[in-house]
């Protein structure tokens, strides 16, 4: 250990080796997985969300939106499934803040923070578990999608867009982790998440092409990162140009992580 490895604030303090970080994160991931075993209902959203959204959009709106696209319900299935998949990361991201807030209010977080572990481990473990939930929800979505007639033409593109959705989702999780740390109750975290995500999700190209939307809304949807994410997923899964939207999505993911991860860790560190 050289002096150069020590940050100024930790002068004279022992740094935590990487292996220890991984071990701590692993133990905390195990804890969050045990929650699921103890409380299987917590997986309901991961199962029901893709099923309900797929059936709702394909059967309720699918016919008429498909017709306006010059096809029918079949064409809409191909349109909406990549969008729903792009959404998956985001919806799982919301849950991360709620669970985190509960930990703070129950005093468990005090115990973790009085242990000799990197404070980031607690956050990273939470994100890892939510990513697992997200992948599970994505598998459910793909099964339902194939059942309602979705045609997987580009397997590699599909895997790539799952990966992209995970990247964007985990970037967004830092935002919700921050909310989870600063807000008073789990309910307010949930309400806040809903208020932020609802307009972003529907004011995007996830569910319907934006061409028929009024000009002001199109301006919004054009800059909405969710449109870029959905359009990238569509391009990757169905074929088509992706380069521009892909860069926009990655840029948003990197920017969100770069700004919000330090904020979340700082808020977590200094929370009273």
């Amino acid at each position, binding site marked *: 250990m050289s002096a150069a490895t020590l940050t100024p604030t930790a002068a004279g303090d022992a740094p935590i080796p990487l292996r220890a970080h991984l071990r701590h994160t692993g133990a905390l991931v195990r804890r969050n997985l045990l929650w699921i075993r103890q409380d299987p209902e917590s997986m309901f959203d991961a199962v029901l969300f893709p099923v309900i959204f797929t059936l709702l959009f394909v059967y309720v709106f699918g016919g008429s939106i498909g017709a306006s696209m010059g096809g029918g319900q079949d064409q809409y299935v191909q349109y909406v499934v990549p969008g729903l998949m792009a959404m998956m990361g985001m919806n799982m991201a919301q849950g991360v803040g709620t669970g985190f807030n509960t930990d703070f209010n129950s*005093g468990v*977080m*005090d115990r973790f923070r009085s242990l000799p572990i990197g404070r980031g481990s607690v956050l990273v473990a939470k994100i890892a578990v939510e990513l697992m939930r997200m992948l599970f929800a994505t598998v459910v979505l793909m099964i339902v999608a194939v059942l309602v007639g979705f045609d997987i033409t580009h397997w590699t593109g599909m895997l790539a867009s799952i990966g992209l959705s995970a990247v964007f989702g985990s970037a967004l999780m830092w935002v919700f982790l921050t909310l989870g740390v600063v807000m008073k109750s789990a309910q307010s975290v949930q309400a806040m998440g809903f208020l932020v995500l609802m307009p972003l999700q529907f004011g995007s190209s996830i569910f319907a092409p934006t061409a028929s939307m009024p000009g002001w809304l199109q301006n919004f949807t054009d800059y909405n990162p969710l449109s870029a994410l959905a359009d990238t997923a569509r391009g990757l899964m169905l074929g088509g140009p992706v380069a521009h939207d892909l860069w926009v999505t990655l840029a948003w993911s990197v920017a969100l992580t770069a700004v919000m991860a330090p904020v979340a860790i700082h808020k977590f560190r200094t929370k009273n």
Partner: protein
Amino acid sequence: MTVRGLVKHYGDTKALDGVDLDVREGTVMGVLGPNGAGKTTLVRILSTLLAPDAGRATVAGYDVVRQPRQLRRVIGLTGQYASVDEKLSGWENLYLIGRLLDLSRKDTRARADELLERFSLIEAARRPVGTYSGGMRRRLDLAASMIGRPAVLYLDEPTTGLDPRTRNEVWDEVKAMVGDGVTVLLTTQYMEEAEQLASELTVVDRGKVIAGGGIEELKARVGGRTLRVRPADPAHLRPLARALDELGITGLATTTVDAERGSVLVPVLSDEQLTAVIGAVTARGITLSSVVTELPSLDEVFLSLTGHRASAPQDTRPADDREEVAV
């Protein structure tokens, strides 16, 4: 443990206003004070959860601000609210903390089994903590604090909200830990708890230390105990009070008659005085139905130390929850 001039503000409120504290290794320091006196803030600073605005604190040779990671390795914390994961079983809670303290898998398993046994939680070990009673949770919380064999243990109001029986269980566990040579900082609102567990006491009020010293010394300063003597025959109440007055054993306060509860209250400073009271009663041939020693409440301690009542009166325990002395 050395604390010098610790200050912490929350906005305009001074939670700690220059606190000094010394705790010798292997002793139990009680920190007594009402709600809002700054006890929890002090514990949070000393357990690295909170940064002080000014002052210094060294625990087990580590500076709480500059060496938090090293310090966290040697401390255990049991908060006011049981900080265990309700969704995990007792065993899983202990296993998780052992792993976070860098114990090997094998050592963690052995330590978890050992502590569950010691805290009488073996039968409930595999059940989710959500199904535990308040006392079981608190015991698990203590067990969790002990996994890493800490040198210093913080107990922040360990029995607040517990019924008398459960509270006694927790006290027994704490005494056993102290027997192992752990240094303990105990915060409490109850004089009785401090007397049971602590060897030295620091009384805090509004973020300041207002008194400190050995338990006996402080008890003497605040008037020791009060003896509540009840004659079997209510007609003996007045004669009994007169007899005890004539004894003239206390210079602090006089005997008072609590007619409503049919008893006489006598302040006593020592075991000798207590014995003298019983002797006087026997000499008069008065039959007693009960003798109870009551410790001064936090309110009384404050009244005699500061001249004002505790900012928020907290001692709401019923009188029958106090120490009974066999006649």
